[in-house]
Protein backbone atom coordinates (compact mmCIF):
# COMPACT_ATOMS: atom_id res chain seq x y z
CA UNK A 1 0.00 0.00 0.00
CA UNK A 2 1.18 3.50 -0.68
CA UNK A 3 0.17 7.13 -0.34
CA UNK A 4 -0.75 9.00 -3.54
CA UNK A 5 -1.14 12.61 -4.46
CA UNK A 6 -4.91 12.10 -4.19
CA UNK A 7 -4.53 10.75 -0.66
CA UNK A 8 -2.58 13.83 0.31
CA UNK A 9 -5.12 16.18 -1.22
CA UNK A 10 -7.97 14.29 0.47
CA UNK A 11 -6.11 14.47 3.76
CA UNK A 12 -5.69 18.23 3.52
CA UNK A 13 -9.29 18.73 2.47
CA UNK A 14 -10.56 16.68 5.39
CA UNK A 15 -8.12 18.38 7.72
CA UNK A 16 -9.60 21.78 6.89
CA UNK A 17 -12.98 20.33 7.82
CA UNK A 18 -11.71 18.71 11.02
CA UNK A 19 -10.02 21.89 12.17
CA UNK A 20 -13.14 23.92 11.51
CA UNK A 21 -15.13 21.43 13.59
CA UNK A 22 -12.55 21.55 16.37
CA UNK A 23 -12.07 25.29 16.29
CA UNK A 24 -14.07 25.89 19.46
CA UNK A 25 -12.39 22.94 21.20
CA UNK A 26 -8.85 24.10 20.41
CA UNK A 27 -9.75 27.66 21.41
CA UNK A 28 -11.09 26.47 24.74
CA UNK A 29 -7.90 24.56 25.43
CA UNK A 30 -5.89 27.67 24.53
CA UNK A 31 -8.10 29.87 26.75
CA UNK A 32 -7.10 27.81 29.79
CA UNK A 33 -3.33 28.21 29.41
CA UNK A 34 -2.88 30.62 26.50
CA UNK A 35 -4.68 33.37 24.68
CA UNK A 36 -7.76 31.70 23.20
CA UNK A 37 -6.77 31.88 19.55
CA UNK A 38 -5.37 28.47 18.59
CA UNK A 39 -8.68 27.28 17.10
CA UNK A 40 -9.11 30.44 15.05
CA UNK A 41 -5.46 30.32 13.97
CA UNK A 42 -5.62 26.74 12.68
CA UNK A 43 -9.01 27.25 11.06
CA UNK A 44 -7.84 30.40 9.27
CA UNK A 45 -4.68 28.69 8.04
CA UNK A 46 -6.34 25.56 6.74
CA UNK A 47 -9.19 27.48 5.15
CA UNK A 48 -6.48 29.25 3.15
CA UNK A 49 -4.86 25.89 2.37
CA UNK A 50 -8.19 24.46 1.30
CA UNK A 51 -8.74 27.40 -1.06
CA UNK A 52 -5.43 26.56 -2.74
CA UNK A 53 -6.03 22.84 -3.20
CA UNK A 54 -7.89 23.25 -6.47
CA UNK A 55 -4.75 24.77 -8.02
CA UNK A 56 -2.64 21.79 -6.89
CA UNK A 57 -4.28 18.84 -8.61
CA UNK A 58 -1.35 18.43 -10.98
CA UNK A 59 1.40 19.05 -8.42
CA UNK A 60 3.53 16.33 -6.84
CA UNK A 61 3.36 15.58 -3.12
CA UNK A 62 6.45 17.62 -2.32
CA UNK A 63 5.08 20.66 -4.10
CA UNK A 64 1.71 20.28 -2.39
CA UNK A 65 3.25 20.10 1.07
CA UNK A 66 5.54 23.06 0.36
CA UNK A 67 2.54 25.11 -0.69
CA UNK A 68 0.77 24.13 2.50
CA UNK A 69 3.83 25.27 4.45
CA UNK A 70 4.12 28.67 2.80
CA UNK A 71 0.36 29.17 3.05
CA UNK A 72 0.41 28.46 6.77
CA UNK A 73 3.40 30.76 7.30
CA UNK A 74 1.64 33.60 5.54
CA UNK A 75 -1.84 33.21 7.03
CA UNK A 76 -1.59 31.82 10.57
CA UNK A 77 0.82 33.97 12.56
CA UNK A 78 1.31 33.32 16.27
CA UNK A 79 3.47 30.40 17.36
CA UNK A 80 1.64 27.76 15.38
CA UNK A 81 2.06 29.52 12.02
CA UNK A 82 5.86 29.34 11.81
CA UNK A 83 5.95 25.94 13.53
CA UNK A 84 3.46 24.11 11.31
CA UNK A 85 4.57 26.20 8.33
CA UNK A 86 8.17 25.02 8.75
CA UNK A 87 7.00 21.47 9.42
CA UNK A 88 5.04 21.25 6.15
CA UNK A 89 7.80 23.03 4.22
CA UNK A 90 10.40 20.56 5.42
CA UNK A 91 8.06 17.65 4.75
CA UNK A 92 7.61 19.00 1.22
CA UNK A 93 11.35 19.27 0.67
CA UNK A 94 11.79 15.69 1.92
CA UNK A 95 9.20 14.43 -0.58
CA UNK A 96 10.13 16.66 -3.49
CA UNK A 97 9.08 15.28 -6.88
CA UNK A 98 7.22 12.27 -5.48
CA UNK A 99 3.80 11.20 -6.76
CA UNK A 100 3.61 8.18 -4.52
CA UNK A 101 5.01 7.49 -1.06
CA UNK A 102 5.96 4.11 0.32
CA UNK A 103 5.85 3.36 4.06
CA UNK A 104 9.53 4.31 4.24
CA UNK A 105 8.84 7.59 2.41
CA UNK A 106 6.10 8.41 4.90
CA UNK A 107 8.54 7.93 7.75
CA UNK A 108 10.89 10.31 5.96
CA UNK A 109 8.03 12.80 5.58
CA UNK A 110 7.11 12.60 9.27
CA UNK A 111 10.73 12.85 10.34
CA UNK A 112 11.17 16.04 8.32
CA UNK A 113 7.88 17.40 9.69
CA UNK A 114 8.93 16.87 13.31
CA UNK A 115 12.43 18.16 12.64
CA UNK A 116 10.85 21.31 11.26
CA UNK A 117 8.96 21.94 14.50
CA UNK A 118 12.10 21.27 16.52
CA UNK A 119 14.30 23.48 14.41
CA UNK A 120 11.88 26.38 14.53
CA UNK A 121 10.67 26.10 18.13
CA UNK A 122 13.74 24.67 19.88
CA UNK A 123 11.54 22.79 22.32
CA UNK A 124 12.22 19.37 23.75
CA UNK A 125 9.83 16.58 24.61
CA UNK A 126 8.25 17.22 28.02
CA UNK A 127 7.87 21.00 27.69
CA UNK A 128 4.12 20.74 27.00
CA UNK A 129 4.12 21.58 23.30
CA UNK A 130 3.17 20.06 19.95
CA UNK A 131 6.31 18.02 20.26
CA UNK A 132 4.77 15.94 23.01
CA UNK A 133 2.34 14.57 20.46
CA UNK A 134 4.67 14.63 17.45
CA UNK A 135 7.72 12.87 18.88
CA UNK A 136 5.88 9.76 20.13
CA UNK A 137 3.96 9.73 16.84
CA UNK A 138 7.20 9.74 14.88
CA UNK A 139 8.73 7.08 17.11
CA UNK A 140 5.68 4.85 16.63
CA UNK A 141 5.77 5.36 12.86
CA UNK A 142 9.44 4.42 12.76
CA UNK A 143 8.82 1.31 14.83
CA UNK A 144 5.85 0.31 12.65
CA UNK A 145 8.01 0.85 9.60
CA UNK A 146 10.81 -1.39 10.84
CA UNK A 147 8.22 -3.94 12.02
CA UNK A 148 7.08 -4.06 8.40
CA UNK A 149 3.51 -2.88 9.08
CA UNK A 150 1.52 -1.51 6.16
CA UNK A 151 0.71 2.15 5.65
CA UNK A 152 -2.73 2.10 7.23
CA UNK A 153 -1.39 0.40 10.36
CA UNK A 154 1.66 2.64 10.46
CA UNK A 155 -0.47 5.76 10.36
CA UNK A 156 -2.92 4.36 12.88
CA UNK A 157 -0.18 3.56 15.37
CA UNK A 158 1.40 6.92 14.82
CA UNK A 159 -1.89 8.70 15.40
CA UNK A 160 -2.64 6.64 18.52
CA UNK A 161 0.77 7.49 19.92
CA UNK A 162 0.05 11.16 19.26
CA UNK A 163 -3.22 10.86 21.12
CA UNK A 164 -1.45 9.35 24.12
CA UNK A 165 1.08 12.13 23.87
CA UNK A 166 -1.73 14.65 24.05
CA UNK A 167 -3.06 13.03 27.23
CA UNK A 168 0.46 13.01 28.65
CA UNK A 169 0.68 16.81 28.31
CA UNK A 170 -2.00 17.28 30.98
CA UNK A 171 0.18 16.81 34.07
CA UNK A 172 3.16 18.61 32.52
CA UNK A 173 4.47 22.01 33.61
CA UNK A 174 4.85 24.16 30.49
CA UNK A 175 8.32 25.57 29.92
CA UNK A 176 7.91 26.75 26.32
CA UNK A 177 5.36 29.02 24.62
CA UNK A 178 2.82 31.19 26.31
CA UNK A 179 1.66 28.51 28.74
CA UNK A 180 5.05 28.75 30.45
CA UNK A 181 4.08 32.20 31.77
CA UNK A 182 1.46 30.50 33.93
CA UNK A 183 4.05 28.52 35.85
CA UNK A 184 2.43 25.91 38.12
CA UNK A 185 -1.01 26.94 36.87
CA UNK A 186 -0.24 25.30 33.51
CA UNK A 187 -0.36 21.89 35.21
CA UNK A 188 -3.61 19.97 34.73
CA UNK A 189 -4.43 21.35 31.30
CA UNK A 190 -4.09 19.69 27.89
CA UNK A 191 -1.82 21.49 25.43
CA UNK A 192 -3.73 22.96 22.47
CA UNK A 193 -0.82 22.62 20.01
CA UNK A 194 -0.28 18.98 20.90
CA UNK A 195 -3.98 18.49 20.33
CA UNK A 196 -3.93 20.03 16.86
CA UNK A 197 -0.86 17.92 16.03
CA UNK A 198 -2.83 14.83 16.92
CA UNK A 199 -5.77 16.00 14.79
CA UNK A 200 -3.41 16.42 11.82
CA UNK A 201 -2.10 12.88 12.21
CA UNK A 202 -5.46 11.34 12.99
CA UNK A 203 -6.94 12.87 9.86
CA UNK A 204 -4.00 11.57 7.87
CA UNK A 205 -4.62 8.06 9.19
CA UNK A 206 -8.34 8.38 8.51
CA UNK A 207 -7.92 9.60 4.94
CA UNK A 208 -5.32 6.98 3.94
CA UNK A 209 -6.95 4.18 5.91
Amino acid sequence: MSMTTEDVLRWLQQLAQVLQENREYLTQLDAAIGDADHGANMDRGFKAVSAKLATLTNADIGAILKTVGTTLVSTVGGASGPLYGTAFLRAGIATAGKQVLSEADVVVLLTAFVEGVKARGKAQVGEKTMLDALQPALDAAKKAGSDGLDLAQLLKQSSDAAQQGVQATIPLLATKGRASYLGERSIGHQDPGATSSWLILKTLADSCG
Partner: protein
Amino acid sequence: MKKLINKPEDVVKEALAGMLAAHPDLLRVDVEQQVIVRKDAPVPNKVGVISGGGSGHEPMHGGFVGRGMLDAACPGAVFTSPVPDQILEATKAVSSGSGVLHIVKNYTGDVMNFEMAAELAAAEGIEVASVVTNDDVAVQDSLYTAGRRGVGVTVLLEKIVGGFAETGAPLEQVAALARKVNEQGRSMGMALTSCTVPTAGHPTFELGEDEMEIGIGIHGEPGRRRVKLAPAAEIVEMLATPVIDDLGLKAGEQVLAFVNGMGGTPLIELYIVYNELQRILKGKQVSIGRSLVGSYITSLEMAGCSITLVRLDDELVKYWDAPVHTPALRWGV
Protein backbone atom coordinates in the same frame (compact mmCIF):
# COMPACT_ATOMS: atom_id res chain seq x y z
CA MET B 1 -20.33 38.75 23.65
CA LYS B 2 -21.06 42.48 23.84
CA LYS B 3 -18.91 44.44 21.45
CA LEU B 4 -19.28 47.27 18.98
CA ILE B 5 -18.33 45.10 16.03
CA ASN B 6 -19.83 43.53 12.95
CA LYS B 7 -18.47 40.05 12.14
CA PRO B 8 -15.74 38.80 14.53
CA GLU B 9 -13.44 37.91 11.63
CA ASP B 10 -13.70 41.44 10.20
CA VAL B 11 -12.72 43.28 13.39
CA VAL B 12 -9.11 44.02 12.51
CA LYS B 13 -9.67 45.10 8.91
CA GLU B 14 -12.64 47.33 9.79
CA ALA B 15 -10.74 49.00 12.61
CA LEU B 16 -7.87 49.61 10.17
CA ALA B 17 -10.27 51.17 7.69
CA GLY B 18 -11.52 53.40 10.52
CA MET B 19 -7.97 54.40 11.46
CA LEU B 20 -7.19 55.33 7.89
CA ALA B 21 -10.38 57.38 7.61
CA ALA B 22 -9.64 59.16 10.89
CA HIS B 23 -5.97 59.93 10.24
CA PRO B 24 -5.46 60.42 6.50
CA ASP B 25 -2.99 63.21 7.27
CA LEU B 26 -0.71 60.89 9.26
CA LEU B 27 -1.07 57.40 7.86
CA ARG B 28 -1.21 55.18 4.82
CA VAL B 29 -2.99 51.92 5.57
CA ASP B 30 -3.01 48.77 3.49
CA VAL B 31 -6.19 47.29 4.92
CA GLU B 32 -5.86 43.99 3.06
CA GLN B 33 -2.22 43.36 4.01
CA GLN B 34 -2.77 44.90 7.45
CA VAL B 35 0.12 47.33 7.31
CA ILE B 36 0.01 50.87 8.72
CA VAL B 37 2.70 53.17 7.37
CA ARG B 38 3.71 56.70 8.22
CA LYS B 39 2.42 58.96 5.47
CA ASP B 40 5.85 60.22 4.38
CA ALA B 41 7.69 56.89 4.61
CA PRO B 42 10.34 55.99 3.72
CA VAL B 43 12.01 59.00 5.33
CA PRO B 44 15.35 59.56 3.57
CA ASN B 45 18.51 58.86 5.60
CA LYS B 46 16.56 57.62 8.56
CA VAL B 47 16.47 54.17 10.11
CA GLY B 48 12.98 52.75 9.65
CA VAL B 49 11.48 51.76 12.99
CA ILE B 50 8.68 49.22 12.91
CA SER B 51 6.79 47.08 15.32
CA GLY B 52 3.85 44.74 15.26
CA GLY B 53 2.06 42.07 17.16
CA GLY B 54 -1.43 40.78 17.64
CA SER B 55 -4.33 43.22 17.48
CA GLY B 56 -6.39 43.96 20.58
CA HIS B 57 -3.72 46.16 22.23
CA GLU B 58 -4.82 49.45 20.69
CA PRO B 59 -3.55 52.12 20.42
CA MET B 60 -0.36 49.98 20.34
CA HIS B 61 1.15 49.72 17.74
CA GLY B 62 -0.80 51.37 14.93
CA GLY B 63 -1.62 54.42 17.05
CA PHE B 64 2.10 55.07 17.44
CA VAL B 65 2.88 55.39 13.76
CA GLY B 66 3.99 58.87 12.78
CA ARG B 67 6.79 61.36 13.09
CA GLY B 68 9.04 60.70 16.06
CA MET B 69 7.82 57.20 16.80
CA LEU B 70 7.13 54.25 14.47
CA ASP B 71 7.47 54.28 10.69
CA ALA B 72 5.13 51.33 10.35
CA ALA B 73 3.15 48.79 12.29
CA CYS B 74 1.78 45.42 11.25
CA PRO B 75 -1.12 44.18 13.35
CA GLY B 76 -1.98 40.48 13.25
CA ALA B 77 -5.31 38.88 14.10
CA VAL B 78 -6.47 39.58 17.66
CA PHE B 79 -3.73 38.33 20.03
CA THR B 80 -1.94 36.60 17.12
CA SER B 81 1.41 37.86 15.92
CA PRO B 82 1.59 39.11 12.33
CA VAL B 83 2.89 36.83 9.59
CA PRO B 84 6.31 37.23 7.97
CA ASP B 85 4.90 38.55 4.65
CA GLN B 86 3.18 41.38 6.46
CA ILE B 87 6.29 42.27 8.46
CA LEU B 88 8.32 42.15 5.26
CA GLU B 89 5.89 44.53 3.55
CA ALA B 90 6.19 46.96 6.45
CA THR B 91 9.97 46.63 6.42
CA LYS B 92 10.15 47.40 2.71
CA ALA B 93 7.76 50.33 3.01
CA VAL B 94 9.98 52.11 5.55
CA SER B 95 13.38 51.17 4.17
CA SER B 96 15.28 54.21 2.90
CA GLY B 97 18.56 52.31 2.71
CA SER B 98 19.59 53.20 6.26
CA GLY B 99 18.39 49.93 7.73
CA VAL B 100 15.29 48.94 9.66
CA LEU B 101 14.78 48.24 13.35
CA HIS B 102 12.26 45.57 14.35
CA ILE B 103 10.81 46.08 17.82
CA VAL B 104 9.50 42.71 18.89
CA LYS B 105 7.72 41.78 22.10
CA ASN B 106 9.02 38.57 23.59
CA TYR B 107 6.42 35.97 22.69
CA THR B 108 7.35 32.77 20.89
CA GLY B 109 5.05 33.58 17.97
CA ASP B 110 6.18 37.17 17.58
CA VAL B 111 9.84 36.26 17.80
CA MET B 112 9.56 33.47 15.20
CA ASN B 113 7.50 35.49 12.71
CA PHE B 114 9.79 38.52 12.97
CA GLU B 115 12.83 36.27 12.61
CA MET B 116 11.46 34.80 9.41
CA ALA B 117 10.63 38.28 8.10
CA ALA B 118 14.12 39.53 8.93
CA GLU B 119 15.60 36.67 6.93
CA LEU B 120 13.37 37.51 3.97
CA ALA B 121 14.30 41.21 4.24
CA ALA B 122 18.00 40.35 4.38
CA ALA B 123 17.54 38.28 1.23
CA GLU B 124 16.18 41.44 -0.42
CA GLY B 125 19.20 43.41 0.73
CA ILE B 126 17.63 45.30 3.63
CA GLU B 127 19.69 45.47 6.80
CA VAL B 128 17.51 44.61 9.78
CA ALA B 129 18.30 44.78 13.49
CA SER B 130 15.87 43.32 16.01
CA VAL B 131 15.30 44.23 19.62
CA VAL B 132 13.13 42.04 21.79
CA THR B 133 11.37 43.67 24.76
CA ASN B 134 11.00 41.54 27.89
CA ASP B 135 10.05 43.73 30.81
CA ASP B 136 7.34 41.78 32.61
CA VAL B 137 8.58 40.90 36.09
CA ALA B 138 5.55 38.68 36.68
CA VAL B 139 7.40 36.09 34.63
CA GLN B 140 10.79 34.83 35.63
CA ASP B 141 13.44 34.90 32.99
CA SER B 142 14.55 31.33 33.49
CA LEU B 143 15.05 27.99 31.83
CA TYR B 144 11.48 27.19 32.78
CA THR B 145 9.78 29.93 30.80
CA ALA B 146 9.99 31.35 27.32
CA GLY B 147 11.67 34.30 29.06
CA ARG B 148 9.91 37.40 30.37
CA ARG B 149 7.06 38.86 28.31
CA GLY B 150 7.34 42.19 26.51
CA VAL B 151 4.69 44.59 27.81
CA GLY B 152 4.51 48.27 28.85
CA VAL B 153 8.13 49.17 28.18
CA THR B 154 7.43 48.57 24.49
CA VAL B 155 5.34 51.76 24.33
CA LEU B 156 7.96 53.92 26.02
CA LEU B 157 10.75 52.37 23.98
CA GLU B 158 8.97 53.05 20.72
CA LYS B 159 8.64 56.71 21.70
CA ILE B 160 12.21 57.17 22.87
CA VAL B 161 13.84 55.19 20.08
CA GLY B 162 11.54 56.76 17.48
CA GLY B 163 12.67 60.18 18.69
CA PHE B 164 16.30 59.18 18.41
CA ALA B 165 15.90 57.64 14.93
CA GLU B 166 14.54 61.01 13.79
CA THR B 167 18.05 62.48 14.28
CA GLY B 168 19.42 60.27 11.51
CA ALA B 169 21.42 58.07 13.88
CA PRO B 170 22.75 54.83 12.35
CA LEU B 171 20.95 51.50 12.82
CA GLU B 172 23.53 50.19 15.25
CA GLN B 173 23.04 53.12 17.61
CA VAL B 174 19.28 53.08 17.28
CA ALA B 175 19.25 49.39 18.18
CA ALA B 176 21.64 50.01 21.07
CA LEU B 177 19.36 52.68 22.55
CA ALA B 178 16.41 50.32 22.18
CA ARG B 179 18.27 47.63 24.12
CA LYS B 180 19.17 50.15 26.77
CA VAL B 181 15.58 51.29 27.28
CA ASN B 182 14.46 47.69 27.52
CA GLU B 183 17.12 46.94 30.11
CA GLN B 184 16.21 50.02 32.15
CA GLY B 185 12.50 49.17 32.27
CA ARG B 186 10.22 46.73 34.09
CA SER B 187 6.47 46.22 34.28
CA MET B 188 3.75 44.28 36.05
CA GLY B 189 0.02 44.07 35.43
CA MET B 190 -3.25 42.88 36.95
CA ALA B 191 -6.82 42.22 35.85
CA LEU B 192 -10.17 42.82 37.51
CA THR B 193 -12.00 41.11 34.64
CA SER B 194 -11.19 38.88 31.70
CA CYS B 195 -11.68 39.87 28.08
CA THR B 196 -13.34 38.18 25.15
CA VAL B 197 -11.43 37.36 21.96
CA PRO B 198 -13.99 38.17 19.22
CA THR B 199 -13.52 34.89 17.36
CA ALA B 200 -13.74 32.93 20.63
CA GLY B 201 -17.01 34.61 21.64
CA HIS B 202 -16.75 34.21 25.40
CA PRO B 203 -14.37 35.43 28.12
CA THR B 204 -10.97 33.76 28.18
CA PHE B 205 -11.33 33.09 31.91
CA GLU B 206 -13.95 33.52 34.60
CA LEU B 207 -13.22 35.56 37.69
CA GLY B 208 -15.42 35.76 40.79
CA GLU B 209 -16.88 39.09 41.94
CA ASP B 210 -14.31 39.23 44.77
CA GLU B 211 -11.28 37.99 42.84
CA MET B 212 -8.54 39.46 40.67
CA GLU B 213 -5.58 38.13 38.70
CA ILE B 214 -2.09 39.39 39.50
CA GLY B 215 0.74 39.09 37.01
CA ILE B 216 -1.21 39.05 33.77
CA GLY B 217 0.21 39.76 30.34
CA ILE B 218 -1.62 41.54 27.54
CA HIS B 219 -3.35 38.63 25.84
CA GLY B 220 -6.26 38.07 28.18
CA GLU B 221 -4.42 35.11 29.64
CA PRO B 222 -4.78 34.25 33.32
CA GLY B 223 -2.07 35.74 35.52
CA ARG B 224 0.45 34.22 37.88
CA ARG B 225 -1.97 34.03 40.77
CA ARG B 226 -5.58 34.65 41.62
CA VAL B 227 -6.15 36.54 44.85
CA LYS B 228 -8.94 38.31 46.71
CA LEU B 229 -9.87 41.77 45.49
CA ALA B 230 -8.02 44.48 47.41
CA PRO B 231 -7.99 48.28 47.71
CA ALA B 232 -5.99 50.20 45.12
CA ALA B 233 -3.25 50.95 47.65
CA GLU B 234 -2.56 47.23 48.13
CA ILE B 235 -2.84 46.40 44.45
CA VAL B 236 -0.33 49.07 43.50
CA GLU B 237 1.99 47.82 46.22
CA MET B 238 1.76 44.30 44.73
CA LEU B 239 2.66 45.61 41.27
CA ALA B 240 5.18 48.30 42.10
CA THR B 241 7.31 46.42 44.62
CA PRO B 242 8.54 43.68 42.26
CA VAL B 243 9.15 46.29 39.57
CA ILE B 244 11.18 48.50 41.90
CA ASP B 245 13.09 45.55 43.35
CA ASP B 246 13.87 43.99 39.99
CA LEU B 247 15.13 47.32 38.67
CA GLY B 248 17.12 47.80 41.88
CA LEU B 249 15.95 51.41 42.14
CA LYS B 250 17.76 53.44 44.77
CA ALA B 251 17.05 56.69 46.57
CA GLY B 252 17.93 59.64 44.37
CA GLU B 253 17.25 57.90 41.09
CA GLN B 254 14.76 59.21 38.57
CA VAL B 255 12.15 57.27 36.61
CA LEU B 256 9.60 57.54 33.86
CA ALA B 257 6.40 56.26 35.54
CA PHE B 258 3.72 54.78 33.31
CA VAL B 259 0.30 53.77 34.62
CA ASN B 260 -1.52 51.91 31.89
CA GLY B 261 -5.14 50.86 31.60
CA MET B 262 -5.98 47.47 30.08
CA GLY B 263 -8.82 48.78 27.88
CA GLY B 264 -11.88 48.68 30.14
CA THR B 265 -10.52 50.78 33.00
CA PRO B 266 -11.74 54.36 33.29
CA LEU B 267 -9.22 57.16 33.59
CA ILE B 268 -10.46 58.18 37.06
CA GLU B 269 -9.19 54.82 38.37
CA LEU B 270 -5.84 55.16 36.59
CA TYR B 271 -5.24 58.47 38.36
CA ILE B 272 -6.02 56.80 41.70
CA VAL B 273 -3.44 54.15 40.81
CA TYR B 274 -0.96 56.85 39.82
CA ASN B 275 -1.56 58.56 43.16
CA GLU B 276 -0.63 55.37 45.01
CA LEU B 277 2.40 54.80 42.80
CA GLN B 278 3.81 58.29 43.35
CA ARG B 279 3.31 57.83 47.10
CA ILE B 280 5.31 54.61 47.07
CA LEU B 281 8.09 56.12 44.94
CA LYS B 282 8.24 59.19 47.17
CA GLY B 283 8.62 56.85 50.16
CA LYS B 284 11.66 55.34 48.46
CA GLN B 285 12.99 58.76 47.46
CA VAL B 286 12.77 57.86 43.81
CA SER B 287 11.71 60.88 41.80
CA ILE B 288 9.34 60.81 38.85
CA GLY B 289 11.02 62.70 36.03
CA ARG B 290 8.33 62.02 33.45
CA SER B 291 4.99 60.25 33.52
CA LEU B 292 2.29 58.79 31.32
CA VAL B 293 -1.22 57.86 32.48
CA GLY B 294 -3.72 56.28 30.11
CA SER B 295 -4.69 53.17 28.16
CA TYR B 296 -1.86 52.65 25.68
CA ILE B 297 -1.17 48.89 25.66
CA THR B 298 -4.43 47.09 26.23
CA SER B 299 -6.10 43.69 26.24
CA LEU B 300 -9.34 44.42 24.43
CA GLU B 301 -11.96 45.40 27.06
CA MET B 302 -10.16 43.91 30.06
CA ALA B 303 -10.47 45.95 33.27
CA GLY B 304 -7.16 46.25 35.04
CA CYS B 305 -3.90 48.10 34.91
CA SER B 306 -0.18 47.75 34.62
CA ILE B 307 2.69 49.73 36.03
CA THR B 308 5.92 50.35 34.14
CA LEU B 309 9.00 52.13 35.43
CA VAL B 310 11.99 53.07 33.30
CA ARG B 311 15.16 54.36 34.95
CA LEU B 312 15.85 57.74 33.36
CA ASP B 313 19.04 59.46 32.31
CA ASP B 314 19.55 62.60 30.24
CA GLU B 315 19.57 60.71 26.95
CA LEU B 316 16.26 59.02 27.64
CA VAL B 317 14.65 62.26 28.84
CA LYS B 318 15.85 64.05 25.73
CA TYR B 319 14.24 61.59 23.31
CA TRP B 320 11.13 61.14 25.44
CA ASP B 321 10.64 64.91 25.19
CA ALA B 322 11.38 65.02 21.46
CA PRO B 323 8.44 65.93 19.20
CA VAL B 324 6.01 63.15 18.38
CA HIS B 325 2.99 63.21 16.11
CA THR B 326 0.96 60.02 16.00
CA PRO B 327 -2.73 59.26 16.47
CA ALA B 328 -2.23 58.30 20.13
CA LEU B 329 0.76 60.30 21.36
CA ARG B 330 1.46 63.84 20.33
CA TRP B 331 3.54 66.68 21.64
CA GLY B 332 5.98 69.30 20.43
CA VAL B 333 4.22 69.40 17.04
